[in-house]
């Protein structure tokens, strides 16, 4: 049995909203609502959802950057607490992150080499100059950056190269889990493919586990053993990759799949695989008032019960979790 790295139970994150008047009660926006999540060593878990679904807040809570309102986060069996600086430092050595904006994640006044060395020193403490340089050079090689780029500044590099540098910074101290928050979304498709492959290689070579967050299911499909679909802070579907893509159960998952542009002009003129999600992703504010399924407003299958009653996350025979009142009755094929 593989070692449990991350165990998240019933995690909720809330943000205070403007009060209703000076003496009014605080209102709260629930960005993440009762999420369970497990990552074992070497595993890759994909988290999918639109902007505002809480996927980045979930990542930030796991990284210890925002305080959860409820629930627990255990890192290798030890609870993670925001006040526990020593514990957080210990965890950060093993839990690193890569974000969407590759240029913004690097200090513009530091060379690439300095940025990577800084991460190494911060996580492992001061060390011999030569040893440090060797580690930096080896890590740059590992992410496919030429060593001469160590002396360049972020603005001299392309977006793809900066993202490689950000990955080098994240893996230089050999973490166990890498959180990738939309790490390839801002890149050209050709470069996106390079970075997806790089993450796949790092996984194979070092048994690095991934928490891969994206709005694009086609990308998640290539990197994840398990996929979790989030809608307005709640898990609406969760399944092993094969099961999810062979038979997406939740209407929202189907809509996400239908939205992936199909690179085929012939197929494209035919009918879409599933109805597109109508309208915008509802805002978290609007959903706070509603008591039923958050997706009901956009769902073609929604009825009175959906608007009234929150569907529980139910497990089917194949280990597929779905939060939908109608999942048993929906047409089998997407």
């Amino acid at each position: 049995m593989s070692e449990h790295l991350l165990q998240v139970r019933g995690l909720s994150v809330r943000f205070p909203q403007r009060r209703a008047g000076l003496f009014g009660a605080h209102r709260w926006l629930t960005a993440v609502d009762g999420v369970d999540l497990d990552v074992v060593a070497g595993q890759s878990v994909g988290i999918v959802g639109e902007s505002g679904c809480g996927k980045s807040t979930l990542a930030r809570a796991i990284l210890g950057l925002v305080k959860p309102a409820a629930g627990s986060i255990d890192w290798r069996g030890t609870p993670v607490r925001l006040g526990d600086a020593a514990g957080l430092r210990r965890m950060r050595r093993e839990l690193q992150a890569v974000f969407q904006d590759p240029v913004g994640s690097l200090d513009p006044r530091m060379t690439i080499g300095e940025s990577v060395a800084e991460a190494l020193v911060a996580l492992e403490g001061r060390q011999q100059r030569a040893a440090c340089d060797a580690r930096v050079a080896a890590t740059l090689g590992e992410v496919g950056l030429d060593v001469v780029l160590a002396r360049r500044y972020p603005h001299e590099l392309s977006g793809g190269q900066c993202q490689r540098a950000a990955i080098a910074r994240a893996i230089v101290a050999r973490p166990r889990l890498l959180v990738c928050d939309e790490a390839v979304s801002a890149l050209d498709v050709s470069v996106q493919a390079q970075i997806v492959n790089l993450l796949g290689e790092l996984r194979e070579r070092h048994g690095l586990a991934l928490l891969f967050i994206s709005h694009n299911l086609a990308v998640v499909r290539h990197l994840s053993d398990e996929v979790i679909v989030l809608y307005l802070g709640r898990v609406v579907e969760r399944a092993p990759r094969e099961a999810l893509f062979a038979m997406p159960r939740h209407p929202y998952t189907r809509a996400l799949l239908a939205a992936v542009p199909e690179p085929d002009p012939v197929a494209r003129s035919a009918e879409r695989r599933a109805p597109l999600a109508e309208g915008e992703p509802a805002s978290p504010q609007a959903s706070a008032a509603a008591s039923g399924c958050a997706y009901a407003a956009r769902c073609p299958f929604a009825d009175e019960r959906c608007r009234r009653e929150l569907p529980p996350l139910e497990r089917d025979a194949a280990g597929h979790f779905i939060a939908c009142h109608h999942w048993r009755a929906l047409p089998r094929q997407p």
Partner: protein
Amino acid sequence: MGAPLLEIRDLSVEFATPRGPIAAVREVSLEVRRGECLAIVGESGSGKSQLFLGSFGLLAAGGRAEGAVRFDGRDLLGPDTSPLRELRGTRVAMVFQDPMNALTPHLTIGQQLCEVVLDRGLLDAAEARARCLEALRSVRMPDPEARLRQYPHELSGGQRQRAAIAMALMTRPDLIVADEPTTALDVTVQAQVLDVLREARDLGLALVLITHDLGVVAGIADRVAVMYAGRIVESAPVRELFAAPAHPYTAALLASVPRLDAPLTGRLEAIEGQPPQPGEERHGCSFAPRCPSAVAQCRELRPALQVAGERSVACHAPRAHAGARP
């Protein structure tokens, strides 16, 4: 078919820098016909945006466009700049990646959309308001009447991009140039915005869609031109291009699109290496260092764009089944 709406001949765009001029676009020729959607596909730095910014006199400081651009028979790059000023924002409109840059934060959506036609004296206030609602409806903006009074920050990313497209539609232009209009959006919203652009095209508008993602053009473009290092390396009708890409770069771009029906090998087909630095010019084909099928000749001699009917390709060793009709 008649004369093309937009005709670009041998257009080059250069930027003056302290280290000398840098070429962004090199002798590109293309046509956009009335009512068609032409997609321009290429990686960052391929010159795809500069090609159109140069054509419409919108280059950043230090930029210079050379060549001939004719819109509906009128010369745009000649010494007389009046045609350019008359066309821009009326018969030609642009939509950019970040709608926040297109929208003014301190005006309501209604004010800034109406301004487009009021400032040019095209419509009176009542007509402008009606046109504004029509434009917002045609981009399927939810609750358009309420949007008129809202500011850009009150809208979601997808709604802002819809507003920017509606703004482009205000003058009922002949041509919309959309530069990465969906790149900053979620896939779900991207699909909706593409639908909106497709509908605008169906109304008879010509559309130029500039994108790095060959995946998004399949459902909307009539023709596709692929750019690499400032040049067009292949252009073809969309079905033929997808069925049988002739240039190895087109084939590689197509293969790098993540697909839902691809076999799960754990790898995507990436194009190894980097595109050349802006302004870097080498002997032979610019793509040769990254090309899996490059031969000795590719590194010596730049391949010319060979035209055969509707297709053209600049490659010494085009893929074998190229030219085959699907």
